[in-house]
């Protein structure tokens, strides 16, 4: 590390990157300074639009001609900007390597992955075919790919996302790079896969002695793997410190703001604290910075000086820099004292939604048309026998990996797709499968918010369209009054009437999602189904939307079905939680009961994998390999047997797991062969199960 007197591997000083386009000047990076030594992981964190990825691209020299790069990037003492393009190319190939967010697009789809890697070795390391093949096997093993020979013969699409990313990492390691740049390498992956990839990165750090620049928007991920962290805001590095200091002794208000936006695990008493929010939006890259702190508009401790003078990076403690005039006044409390979240009473709540043995099969049922059409094959059993109830004013969280059937459940209950079996009861009525066959009142009572805010508003129509149509259809509002009512709806989600006539394209993602929420709330629904509604938003915006949902619930007493792959968010918002795996319920119960041992082994694995924004947290290490299976056949035994780290033996493969009641609550069900008492003991000991031989 740097303290050992080694010259840093990489040193960036006052880097600025400006893009000149026909219509605007985009200052993607204004002033970034950081350094990395060998054997060290530097986490680069910030919200979208803060210039993290641009820094990474500038390092690789991957910027278009319209970009003006100022400042200095010293790599092993050489100024990168002074290099000829051929020198730069060999530098990129041999000493700097990069891993991108989407492993699917980093690999050539038409080539088997083994030869792809061999090609790199032959090209850059002057190896012979045989040497390359041997080295490829070594590399595959070093990134944790079992049976390298078999993996190498597969095409990228035959590998799961996690395995693809391992191959990409192996390729990046092929030429023994001195610096490895990882740009959001786990963002597109499931939490369980993410955890295994992060373990890999940590182990690499020790083995390959390279510096790693790890770019991520996720503070939990950064806390888990970084040695030091640099925080970016509005194109500037605003704080740089060791990971412990950054999380425990924060010196910049933006960093504390980000931290207080992240849902924290509930305290011992099972009560989580409410999220704080950073008001306003990220400083736009199009705006020219005057002589002022870029963060001062949103900063709770801003003073006069902050709007007339631009702060510089100052050393505030040993190895700790911050771009703030008042670093000693930065405390968590500046964002307000966190209040405990109000939890709806569990009993006495009227039942709103009652779903019984819901079943959804995809495909398979199609017959041949005349002589043509696909062969009939067994359907994919996306959802199999799911039961749950939602009480009035309560929130049910549904969590699981991708492929677990969460979205199918959401789409089925709102009627976008018809179930193949089961009952969906709304209050006293049984709902029809298709939304078209439901009554207008039933549709008004259950509304939905989608994951992608950009796609949930018609791009060719002004945003008032969504609101006025909902008002006209559900609330019977007359045409002359719709504008007034639409304005009220918008104001209720914290936006002004001036947005009514704008096309959705002019709004940020967070604003678009608020409009979608306003549309969902237009007719005072009893229940709102939110399918990954905050997943695509930045943490500060996510906190705003989560608070909005909660305030709304407090006022109107509506219920939510809140679906997310992010266990942190689900456990924050939910009163009850349903854990889905491969279309089956693994565990279902009140949040308090479910989040304490005994857990279902799958829940335990999810909890263990979920990144926590606390570098000192040491959760039990339980890792799941592989991905959720595609369910073409009915499971003969337990649905989770294939990946279960606590698998008992043949009983798990042969008999469906019994529904066991949790110890302290009748409303807690675990579907597992292991007796509840035994699960409690195993999990209380904090001991990880021996890795199953896969």
């Amino acid at each position, binding site marked *: 590390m740097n303290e050992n007197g080694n010259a840093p591997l990489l040193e960036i000083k006052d880097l600025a990157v400006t893009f000149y386009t026909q219509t605007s000047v985009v200052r993607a990076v204004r002033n970034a300074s950081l350094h990395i030594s060998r054997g060290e992981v530097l986490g680069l964190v910030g919200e979208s639009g803060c210039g993290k990825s641009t820094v990474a691209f500038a390092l690789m020299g991957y910027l278009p001609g319209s970009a003006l790069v100022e400042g200095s990037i010293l790599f092993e003492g050489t100024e990168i900007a002074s290099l000829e393009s051929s020198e730069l190319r060999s530098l990129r190939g041999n000493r700097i390597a990069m891993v991108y967010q989407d492993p699917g697009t980093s690999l050539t789809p038409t080539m088997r992955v083994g030869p792809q890697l061999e090609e790199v070795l032959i090209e850059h390391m002057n190896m012979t075919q045989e040497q390359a093949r041997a080295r490829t096997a070594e590399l595959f093993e070093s990134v944790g790919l079992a049976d390298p020979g078999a993996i190498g013969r597969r095409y990228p699409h035959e590998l799961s996302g996690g395995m693809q990313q391992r191959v990409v990492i192996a390729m990046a390691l092929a030429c023994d790079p001195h610096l490895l740049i990882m740009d959001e390498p786990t963002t597109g992956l499931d939490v369980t896969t993410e955890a295994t990839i992060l373990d890999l990165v940590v182990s690499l750090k020790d083995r390959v002695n390279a510096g790693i620049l790890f770019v991520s928007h996720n503070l939990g991920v950064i806390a888990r793997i970084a040695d030091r962290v640099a925080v970016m805001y509005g194109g500037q590095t605003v704080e740089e410190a060791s990971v412990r200091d950054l999380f425990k002794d924060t010196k910049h208000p933006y960093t504390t703001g980000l931290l207080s936006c992240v849902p924290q695990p509930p305290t011992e008493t099972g009560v989580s604290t409410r999220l704080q929010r950073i008001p306003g939006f990220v400083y736009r890259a199009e705006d020219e910075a005057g002589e002022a702190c870029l963060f001062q508009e949103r900063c709770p401790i801003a003073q006069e000086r902050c709007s007339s003078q631009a702060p510089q990076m100052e050393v505030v403690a040993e190895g700790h820099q911050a771009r703030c005039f008042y670093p000693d006044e930065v405390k968590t409390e500046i964002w307000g004292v966190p209040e405990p979240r109000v939890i709806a009473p569990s009993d006495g709540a009227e039942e709103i939604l009652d779903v019984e043995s819901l079943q959804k099969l995809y495909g398979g049922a199609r017959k041949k*048309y005349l002589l043509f059409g696909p062969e009939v094959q067994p359907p994919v059993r996306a959802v199999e026998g799911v039961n749950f109830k939602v009480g009035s004013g309560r929130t049910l969280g549904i969590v699981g990996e991708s492929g677990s059937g969460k979205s199918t459940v959401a789409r089925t209950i*709102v*009627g*976008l797709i018809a179930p193949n079996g089961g009952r969906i009861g709304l209050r006293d009525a049984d709902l029809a499968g298709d*939304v*078209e066959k*439901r009554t*207008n009142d039933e*549709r008004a009572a259950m*509304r*939905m918010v*989608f*994951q*992608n805010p950009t*796609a*949930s*508003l*018609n*791009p*060719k*129509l002004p945003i008032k369209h*969504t609101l006025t*149509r*909902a008002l006209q*259809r*559900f609330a019977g509002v007359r045409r002359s009054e719709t504008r007034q009512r639409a304005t009220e709806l918008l104001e209720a989600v914290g936006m002004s009437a001036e947005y009514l006539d704008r096309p959705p394209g002019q709004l940020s993602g967070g604003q678009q999602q608020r409009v*979608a929420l306003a*549309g969902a709330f237009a007719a005072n629904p009893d229940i709102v189904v939110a399918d990954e509604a905050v997943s695509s938003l930045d943490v500060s915006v996510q906190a705003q939307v989560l608070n909005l949902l909660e305030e709304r619930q407090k006022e109107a007493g509506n219920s939510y079905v809140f679906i997310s792959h992010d266990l942190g968010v689900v456990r924050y918002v939910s009163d009850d939680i349903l854990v889905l795996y491969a279309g089956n319920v693994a565990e279902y119960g009140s949040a308090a009961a479910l989040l304490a041992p005994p857990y279902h082994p799958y829940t335990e694995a999810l909890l263990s994998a979920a990144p926590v924004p606390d570098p000192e947290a040491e959760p039990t290490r339980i890792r799941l390999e592989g991905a959720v299976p595609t369910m073409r056949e009915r499971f003969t035994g337990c649905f989770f047997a294939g990946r279960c780290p606590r698998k008992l033996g043949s009983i798990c493969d042969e008999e469906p797991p019994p529904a066991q009641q949790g110890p302290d609550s009748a409303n807690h069900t675990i579907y597992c062969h292991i007796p509840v008492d035994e699960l409690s003991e195993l999990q209380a000991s904090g001991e990880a199960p021996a890795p199953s031989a896969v």
Partner: protein
Amino acid sequence: MATAEAGQEVARGGNPALRAAVGKVRSAVGLVMKTNTGRVGGIIVAIHVFLALFGPWVVPYDPIAFDPQDLESRFSAPSTEHLFGTDKFGRDVFSRVLAGARSVVWIAVGGTTLGIFLGLLVGMTSAYMGGRWDMWIMRGVDVWLAFPGLLLLLLILDLSRKTLQVDESLVIILTLGIGMMPINSRVIRSAALAVKPLEFVQNARLRGESFLYIIFREILPNIVPVVVVEGTLRVGFALLAVSGLGFLGLGVQPPTPDWGQMISEARNNMRGAPWAALAPAFAISSLVVGVNLLTDGIRQSLNLPVNR
């Protein structure tokens, strides 16, 4: 003309929606005119449209009437008096080409509009209903497309002539529209398929919107570029089809001048008086080339990929 009127209303204040619409059309036209092909094509088409609209008032001679006794003026070569010469009846070819422009343009544009409208209905329905409906509608379209184009046109033409007692050009418009529907509906279906799964369409379903509302109000605005390009492209095809029908003697009936019919009449005298056939042929080809260039310009200005 409609835009000109709308433009005036905007000048007087107008309503904001209309003003926005006119503004959009203006900027769209501006974008098309920025491309080379769009500019050239636009000018060619504008000349043709101008002549079709005002031609009858500028023609120097009567395009239809002729004097059977006047053998002198037959087959006279192009001269200052007769720009494109005269035909076998001694009629001025230039006057006839101008007079023919109107029926050709009107029929081609009318037929295409009808074809696009039918295509929208069938294509969007097929895409939105999906599943079995989509399968059967599209197989029906396939059967339709399997017929040789001209044969199909002749069939519809014959049927509609027998059953409908309407104006001759309306019959041809109807024929073109129905004949063009299948291919239009395919293109529109594929565009609509890309929009259908988007969340705002699902949202409209959750509001309980009607089928027609969803396809015309939610989906249609998002496929307008495809529809515009498809429409202009089809005008070119329609022009050729109208001329083809005229050439076969199945289009506009004499004595009303029609380009295809003029070529057909003049082709027996190609050696002695090529001008009588070449002039309408040039008119057809220049208009078709103009329309195709314009289509290309529109496509470029919309940044759509060239997929045909």
